[in-house]
């Protein structure tokens, strides 16, 4: 029963990774692709590390695997946010079907300095 559980966990994690890759291939622009890569991808690989932690059953290996998961969960949103901001500042346009762009007109130069409300008038 234990091995059935571990095997199902591994297959679910691999399916999440596959969904992330399909999203990366099919979604229309870099901002939407970032959703697939940074959420589903992180969850899939994190779940695989959790599977190792359960499978090992030893405290030294499980703690290393869980430390890897924690590190991974800390860094993935940071890198995704950094890349999204860099892409926006560099001027990569969102998809034409985008409904709302709250940052439009708020970057005053290419170095990424935000314009405050005082500058706008």
């Amino acid at each position, binding site marked *: *029963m*234990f*091995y*059935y559980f*571990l*095997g*199902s966990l*591994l*297959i679910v*994690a*691999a*399916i999440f*990774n*596959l969904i*992330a*890759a*399909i999203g*990366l*291939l099919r979604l229309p622009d*870099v901002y939407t*692709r*970032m959703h697939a*890569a*940074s959420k589903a*991808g*992180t969850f*899939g*690989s994190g779940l*695989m*590390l959790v*599977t*190792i932690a359960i*499978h*090992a059953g030893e405290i030294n*290996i499980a703690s*290393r*695997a869980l*430390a*890897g998961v924690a*590190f*991974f969960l800390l*860094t*993935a949103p*940071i*890198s*995704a946010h*950094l*890349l999204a*901001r*860099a*892409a926006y*500042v*560099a*001027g*990569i*346009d969102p998809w034409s079907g985008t409904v709302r762009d709250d940052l439009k007109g708020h970057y005053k130069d*290419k*170095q*990424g300095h935000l314009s405050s409300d005082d500058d706008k008038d």
Partner: protein
Amino acid sequence: MTPEQFFDLAILISFGLSIVAFIFTIIRLILGTTLADRILSLDMLVTLGIGFIAIFTLYTGFYAYLDMAIALGLVGFLATVAFARLLMHRGETNDTPAGDKLEDIEDEADEAISNPSGGVN
């Protein structure tokens, strides 16, 4: 099917799904359209690599590979941060080949020579 056999089968299925995910990500890396898409694909490749190493750790039962996955996560995070800075300071969006850009510069230089009083635009 015994539980151990199911677990071995699950590992093989996870390998297969991960390889398909790798192929999709590499297709996006080649198609690109913008530099940000390619950086995102590289980030996704690192994520998939961590998952692949996790499956390989379970396949061999040799837990030292786990440290490699954590180190790969660290390197991948730093690479994405560096690429995001590059994208921000490079500042251009369309991936024109270097030769085309050179022609534009030459055209502007020709105009400037033939029309010296044209002023700066």
